[in-house]
């Protein structure tokens, strides 16, 4: 395989991403933070647990947090794949469209989100990813009783977002990451959605996500 994940991780970790003189981290066309996983987990889980107290809002809580994951994927993954750093480090390894996805997963593995692994990739059709030490699931498991539902909302949105950037949109053509382009990728009937079939928070050994087209998923 052309993508050398260890080399990518070493290169990105070596960028020394940290706040500048203004206390900000402008990178990849974004303002980044090195944030506290406990913070995200507390605000996300407090919100979703509050909504789950009302039976008809159970799905709404998950929907909102997964949508935040879509926004993250679109802007962060999209921004990274359009960046000079991507061109310098990852692009020389790329031999196919699928390598864009493999390269982005390697970059994700520098974000502190856990260890993402591609288990299956059928171009344009299906992506299965496992995550070891997902920060969402480990946070849930530490602070709450075993869950009846999967809890990795951010990762769920991220997995679907990878496929939407590659196979609904065309991140290879370096599009502007506008609101209308977001709607094109994440609102159409042809979009990908992900399901977390296994989750550490439910007692599974690791978290596992499958993304496929909405119409395929519904049928």
């Amino acid at each position, binding site marked *: 395989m052309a993508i050398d994940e260890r080399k990518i*991780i070493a290169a990105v*970790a070596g960028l020394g991403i940290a706040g500048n003189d203004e206390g*900000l981290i402008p990178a990849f066309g*974004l303002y*980044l933070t090195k944030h*506290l996983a406990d*913070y995200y987990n507390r*605000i996300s889980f407090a919100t979703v647990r509050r909504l789950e107290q009302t039976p008809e809002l159970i799905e709404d809580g998950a929907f909102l947090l997964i949508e935040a994951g879509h926004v993250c994927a679109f802007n962060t993954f999209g921004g990274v794949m359009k960046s000079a750093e991507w061109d310098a480090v990852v692009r020389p390894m790329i031999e196919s469209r699928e390598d864009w996805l493999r390269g982005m997963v390697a970059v994700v593995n*520098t974000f*502190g989100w856990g260890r993402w692994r591609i288990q299956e990739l059928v171009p344009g059709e299906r992506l299965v990813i496992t995550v070891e030490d997902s920060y969402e699931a480990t946070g849930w498991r530490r602070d709450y009783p075993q869950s009846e539902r999967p809890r990795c909302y951010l990762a769920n949105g991220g997995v679907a977002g990878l496929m939407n950037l590659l196979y609904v949109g065309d991140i290879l053509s370096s599009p502007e990451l506008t609101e209308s382009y977001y709607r094109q990728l994440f609102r159409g009937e042809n979009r990908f959605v992900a399901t977390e079939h296994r989750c550490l928070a439910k007692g599974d050994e690791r978290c596992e996500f499958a993304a496929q087209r909405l119409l395929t998923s519904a049928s």
Partner: protein
Amino acid sequence: MTGPGDAPHFDAQKNLVELAGRRLVFHCHHYNLFLQRIIEDALPEEGPRIQMLAAAEAVRIILSELFGASPEAELQDKLARARALFGSLGFGLAQPEELGAMGGRVQLATSHYAIGWRSKFGPSQRPVCHFAVGYWVAALTAACNLPPERMHGRELQCAATGAPSCILAVEVQ
């Protein structure tokens, strides 16, 4: 000013980033502000307080661990370390010189959340720096080893609403 253990550690075998034994994760302003907005849309009354308390809890654990390694340090030295960490993690440029053992004010010359909100959504009708309020409540809690129940924080003005800078108030009750 920094102290021992203030730099996050990346474990390349596990792909984890840790600071004082707690996990750090990279996220951008699009995610941070969208997440904040949906929480406040879903829970308009509770949302800001949920975020402020979550920040205070998470930050207090980290700073208590870091400050615990140098218990003899002066208050202003501890607050200077909190300021350096705040900036290095990308949350903004804080000026805590008016913060003392009984509370006071922190000015944010830049704020990730205020800049991010304006960039993503335009001007806000209300202050948005709930994380920063919780952060500085936690900084004083950890620096003075006070019970968190005695602390109260709020944002007096916010750059997201058009103010020239953000000003936070921390009170010890």
